[in-house]
């Protein structure tokens, strides 16, 4: 589980679109996975299992927030990025632009894009994590990518 943490943190960031929510989500996911670890079946992929816990946890969070009337995270939250030396700044600037575009997608498209394009899951694996048929996954992926291409420019 420890070895999965870096990837889980990346997925959390892609889902939430900002560092603070990503940290909270990661923490909550680890806690849930520890409590529920008896339910993980040996022989199945632990990464998929944890991606799924994380994604469902994020859905719960966003639903609770919608009920509380604050659907949108303030823009600054995602843009407030620390600077630690030149190389990191560069990486973070690039992340900012991509992340801003990613944040404009509907949740269902963003999670599909994050699992396939960022986490590198196969379509079948991503569909299993999201618990949707393959056709649903691919159509969300197509729509999400088209929106991203339009935002980030054809040159990507």
């Amino acid at each position, binding site marked *: 589980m420890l070895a999965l943490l870096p990837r889980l943190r990346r997925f959390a960031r892609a889902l939430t679109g900002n560092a603070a929510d990503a940290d909270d989500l990661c923490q909550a996911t680890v806690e849930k996975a520890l*409590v529920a670890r008896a339910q993980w079946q040996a022989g199945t992929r632990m990464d998929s299992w944890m991606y799924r816990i994380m994604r469902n946890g994020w859905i719960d969070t966003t639903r609770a927030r919608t009920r509380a009337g604050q659907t949108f995270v303030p823009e600054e939250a995602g843009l407030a990025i620390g600077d630690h030396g030149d190389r990191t700044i560069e990486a973070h600037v690039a*992340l900012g632009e*991509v992340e801003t575009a990613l944040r404009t997608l509907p949740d269902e498209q963003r999670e599909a894009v994050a699992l396939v394009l960022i986490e*590198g899951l196969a379509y079948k694996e991503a569909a299993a994590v999201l618990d949707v048929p393959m056709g649903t996954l691919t159509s969300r*992926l197509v729509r999400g990518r*088209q929106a991203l291409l339009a935002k980030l420019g054809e040159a990507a």
Partner: protein
Amino acid sequence: MTIDPETLMAFADGELDPLAAKRVERAIAADPLLAEQVAAQRALRARLSAAFAPLAEEAVPDALAARLRSNVVTLAAPAPRRVVSRWREALALAACLTLGVLLGQNWRAAGPIAAHDGALYASGRLAGALDTQLAATQGAAPVRVLASFRATGGGYCRVFAAPVTNGIACRDAHGWALRQTRAGTGEGGQGDYRQAGSPDPALLAAAQDMMAGDPLDAAGEAKAQASGWR
């Protein structure tokens, strides 16, 4: 030959089987525009994964890692199932209440709700509408079907709005079982029927939770109706 966007994307991601990939390759060779689109898809993928790569290389915060490294992880005892049974009680109570109110209101008029084996089912005009009406072609009917979908557990369900009650009904062996009910859009003439088109967001959220995949489109709905929603 036309290549749909899904297939082209799958090709760019290396998800197609060799035969299908061959077909796309041939189409790309003949159409520079397709080749461009594949290149754009791949560039997007590269850009996204490159942008997020540094995150996976960042050091994991100590607090998080420590939680996993520690050998004295306290495994919370599984939460008692009490919560579930309370929910059941609450649901049963709510169902009884709805039943009482609806039966009370509509006893003489052969209302839209009937009980069967302790469960609530659509009857009369509501059941008829659920059986026959298509969302695409229903016009200004008193009962309006807002969406139809396949439930995750199998079987068809439909979201409806009617004067007495709004809800979600799912087809089973006995008929249309009512899974969700909300206060209706109100009695009155056609003129008063302004809310029918604007579905209750809570109801649609519940439908979303029950749904396997996407709601049926017009063709899918017609097909499901032709097969008797089974």
